[in-house]
Every structure is written in C-alpha cells, then in structure tokens.
C-alpha cells in the first residue's frame, strides 16, 4: 500500500490522571495515522454493530425459515 507523504493527525482533548488534573487541568494528545486507510481501518475496528441488528435478523431469518401457516388452520382458529 502506498503511504502518503504527510501524516494525518487527530487531535483530541485527553483527560489526564487525577494528579495531573490537579496540577494542569487538561492536556492535548495527538493520534497519528500514516495513511487514510490506516485511519479508516482504525475507525472500522472501533465501530460496533448495534445489537438490534442481530436481534432483528434472527427474527427475520427464523420467520423466513418457518413454513407458512396453512390457510385452513387460520380458518379454524376463527
């Protein structure tokens, strides 16, 4: 993979330890990525799929796999 010339930086406010907070409040940390894909890879790895997707999908696939309810059974259930 090609690496761009300049590094990408992500500046975020970083909470310091309690001791440091007492002394100097908050500090800045710099997270560096050597390329766009490295940044996106990091972003993708930090991403979590909401549990709701799996729950819905389990229900949907179970419904699909289940044989259709016969019309005559529906009829007799009134």
């Amino acid at each position, binding site marked *: 993979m090609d690496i761009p010339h300049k590094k990408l930086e992500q500046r975020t406010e970083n909470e310091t330890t309690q001791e440091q907070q007492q002394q100097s409040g908050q500090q800045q940390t710099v997270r560096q990525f050597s390329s766009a894909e490295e940044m996106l890879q990091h972003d993708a790895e930090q991403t979590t799929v909401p549990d709701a*997707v799996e729950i819905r999908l389990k229900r949907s696939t179970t419904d699909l796999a289940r044989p259709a309810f016969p019309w005559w059974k529906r009829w007799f259930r009134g």
Partner: protein
Amino acid sequence: MAPAAYDEKSVDGTTQEKPATWSSREFGEIYEEYSRQIYYLALRMLSDPAQAEDATHDIFLKAFRSMQQFRGDSAVRTWLYRIAINHCRNLIQSWHRRTMVTNVDDAFWEHSSASADTPLQIMETAELGKRIQKTLDRLPDEYRLLLLLVADRQLGYDQIAELTGQTSDAVRGKLYRARKAFAELFRKSE
C-alpha cells in the same frame, strides 16, 4: 452477544418468544465474521447510523435468501460486499442523498462507533468518526467506496477491482488520488 430474552405479541394476539438462536448455524457464523465490516461500509456510505442499521439488516437478509444460490465462485466476503454495495447505492440513488445536507444529530455518532470502555475513548472515537464522515461525504462516490473497501485489511486489490468492475492497476491509481483527496479534506475539516 446475549440472546434476545423478551416476549412479543404476535398479530393473532398470542405471545411469541423472540428467537434466541440463528435458524441456520452457518449463517450465524457468517454474520459474526462479517457484520462489522458490512455495517461499517453502510454507516460511512449512508452517513446515518439508523439507516446503516436498517441497511445491514436488509443486506444480511438478502444474503440469507440467496444463500442457496451462492455457489462459492467468489469468497463469502466479496459476495457480501457486492450485495452491500448494490444495496447502499440503490438507497443513495432513491433518496438522492448526495444532494442533501447530512444533518444527523451529534448524539447519534457517540453511540454509533463507540466500543471504548472509558469516556475518554468514547470522546476520541466520536470526534474521529465525525471528522472521517465529514471528509468522506465530500469525496467523489468512487473515491469514498475505494477507501472504504481498502479499510478492510482482508480485501486485496484484486478483490476490490472485482467489486468495482475495473483492473487492479486502475484501483491502485485511483486509490492514490483518493488518499490524497482524503488527506487534504481531512486537514481542512479540523
């Protein structure tokens, strides 16, 4: 992931227990292995966590329906990505999303891409995610897709070429320009 453990009233009034297991073990394994990459692609292509959630469900449901037709000519990963790309493209086209301004609430992002345990990590991830999304939204569609595909470490140039219908050399050339464009826009987004 914890199984669903609540009941739900069905249409006919009877109580149905939500399925706690996959109806197909094979499909469950596919979901476990690829759901993160597919959700990430949908999230960054659609720029909206709620839409990405729906899209991921629909993509995997399409995959489930067509599992019998999957002959193994391509890898499962490539097969899923193809379904995902087509699905997201169709959504974007039908909504004319690219001409609209994304106005997703900031709170969405804090929940969408945060797997960190500490508040610090959540803050970092949310901030990074927002800037990445802002940058991707400004890229041409082709560059955005190429960068999102190359973000999957398991996808090679040949597979990306197959998915985007071009040669590996063309992918390399366009990725070079895509990286430059991304880097420039990302720095401007600060």
